[in-house]
């Protein structure tokens, strides 16, 4: 077999694998999107069909035409954006410390940081809520932002420590020899190189904040403070669900996340990190 032919076979296999994988991951989402264009009755029709006669954008019109629901989206953007930026900042500082310094209690701190996220959030609900009320943060963005930071910080610290660990120490030493401070070494050299890791961490953080329901509901009160997942749950009534509107709202809700992901994709692209490390 020539080299060219073997590459062609390999490419075919890869494409086949990718398509199978895409059906696995994409079909349910395709179905969800299709359902958002159906009438509620057709969603349950048998035999089921992907596209039905009553195909309409009605559900989207209802969701987007409602100022309350638009506000849910705005709140979700704001909270998730803030959480992502702040978590990355705080997590990077902590990760740097864990990766580059030796100090007492390091191991203990590590276990605590992992441990704090090991308590099921549902059991924390009541004491946590009392605390937020005592701190006068009830029904504020700050309550949601701080809460999600608590949920995501452990992850961010662990991941950033990991990414920094993979970067050679010679990199920061070069900055120190040039007369720069350690702080500079962190922001000017390590952070740009660790960017793919930061983006991956950031996407996770954004996603968690975007999708969290229980605390979003409990820690806010008024309709102008609610987020998208609460809005979706409000379509699940006591006696019936508005299936198509729920689907439409989810599809709309996932768009910003996907756009962010697409936008930051170039940071995952091959060569970039490798090149920097080489230099």
């Amino acid at each position, binding site marked *: 077999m020539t080299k060219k032919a073997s590459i062609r076979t390999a490419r075919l296999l890869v494409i086949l694998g990718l398509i199978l994988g895409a059906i696995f991951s994409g079909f349910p989402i395709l179905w969800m999107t299709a359902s958002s264009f159906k*009438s*509620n*009755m057709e*969603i*349950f*029709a*048998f035999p089921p069909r992907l596209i039905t006669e009553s195909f309409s954008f009605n559900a989207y019109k209802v969701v987007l035409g409602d100022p309350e629901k638009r506000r849910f989206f705005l709140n979700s953007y704001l909270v998730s954006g803030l959480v992502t930026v702040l978590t990355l900042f705080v997590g990077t500082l902590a990760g740097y410390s864990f990766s580059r310094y030796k100090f007492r209690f390091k191991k203990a701190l590590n276990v605590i940081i992992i441990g704090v996220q090991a308590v099921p959030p549902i059991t924390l*609900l*009541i004491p946590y*809520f*009392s*605390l*937020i*009320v*005592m*701190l*006068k*943060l*009830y029904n504020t963005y700050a309550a949601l932002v701080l809460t999600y930071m608590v949920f995501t910080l452990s992850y961010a610290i662990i991941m950033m420590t990991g990414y920094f660990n993979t970067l050679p120490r010679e990199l920061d030493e070069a900055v120190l020899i040039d007369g720069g401070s350690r702080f500079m070494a962190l922001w000017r050299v390590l952070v740009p190189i660790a960017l793919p890791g930061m983006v991956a961490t950031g996407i996770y953080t954004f996603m968690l904040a975007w999708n969290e329901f*229980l605390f979003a*509901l*409990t820690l806010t*009160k*008024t*309709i102008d403070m609610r987020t998208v997942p*609460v809005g979706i*749950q*409000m*379509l*699940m*009534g*006591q*006696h*019936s*669900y508005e299936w198509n509107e729920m689907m439409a709202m989810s599809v709309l809700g996932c768009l910003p996340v996907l756009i962010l992901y697409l936008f930051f994709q170039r940071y995952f692209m091959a060569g970039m990190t490798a090149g920097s490390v080489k230099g």
Partner: protein
Amino acid sequence: MMKGTFRAFLALLVLVAASLGSQTFAQSDVTLEFTQWWEPELPDGAFRALMDEFEAQNPGIKVELISGPYSSTKEQVIAGAVAGTMSDVVGLDGAWVSDFVKQGSIANLSDLMAEAAYDDSELASQIQLQGGTYMIPVVNFVYPVFVNLDLLAEAGIDAAPTTRSEFADAAAKLTNPDNNVYGWVLPLSMEQPNGIQNDVMSWLWASGGSMMKDGMPDLTNDGVRQTAEYIKGLWDAGVIAPGSFTMKEQDKVEEFVNGRVGMMISSLAHINLIRERNPDLNFAITALPAADGYTGKRGLPYASWGIGVSANSEHPAEAWKLVAFLMSQETNSKLSSIANAFPGNVNSTPDFVQSDELFGAAFQVFQDGYLANEFTGLPVAEDLMRAFDEQFQPYLDGSQSLDDSLNKAQEAWMENF
């Protein structure tokens, strides 16, 4: 010792937070918070309009509606009661009342009524515990039987069943797995175990039976036994639509809408929903069949939108005014009209009773029978339904005998009394 340090730490946190500058505004008006799940269930703006009316009648009182999803209202009220942020007025489900009373989070309405010199003769019902009223059902959603007339006609049945054996017979005739049609639908989801109340125990109540005796569980009596055996008979005959063990009320109605089940026990709230989703569906409403030979009055299961007042409300008198407003003949008529429910005021008549044939029929069913929901006011009512469900599923499934199931359920229930 530990408690002291802990409190001191909390106090310190509060001080820090307070010094960071959160201000409270002095207000001359009283603002009542009203937590409920009703607003999202009603047409847009309809409930707010009623509140505006209340504010116009009661200058100096404002109502702030706090709306959440039904499924999470209970958690929110419990957490709010602990943290001291519970709303002045709260929407309640009959299944929660006993637990909130135990927690001490809702006020004794009898006291409020006495203070306001309120005449309670207009109230259709009051949920009483320990000699006091804690919840008043504002509107009620009864659960009659919905029948798909076209399917019935196709199966050659000309009258809706009125007895258990007629029902079993009709269900068998309706069932045709090849066409994907089944006679009955039974939601037994563990997440929302209210199928036990609406679709299982309702059979018992419709025949005048009871699952209680002198305020204690009595699940091993003949009535419960016959009901369970009857449903098991339907199950074994294969006339129940598949997927029962994870089905919820919200799924059940979609099966009916799509013409896949001939009969279901369901909330009146579904009449408009079915019409909206499938305008061509030809259906009618009838009373729940009773045991053969039973001639007494038929108990009718129902779910309520109940109302209560927070035990820690700073404005209990104003809160009561809001409750009284909702219970007044005029407002209650309006609310039951927009909610398609039956009123909690005996003198109120919702307009749909005259204008709508189906609702008229339902009203007839309602007036011929009596409201029966033995779960209302029981401790951990939802947990009781779930405990029963846990034993009922293996019985249907054939992995546990009827005696074992009922005895185990009885045992589980007794732990809570």
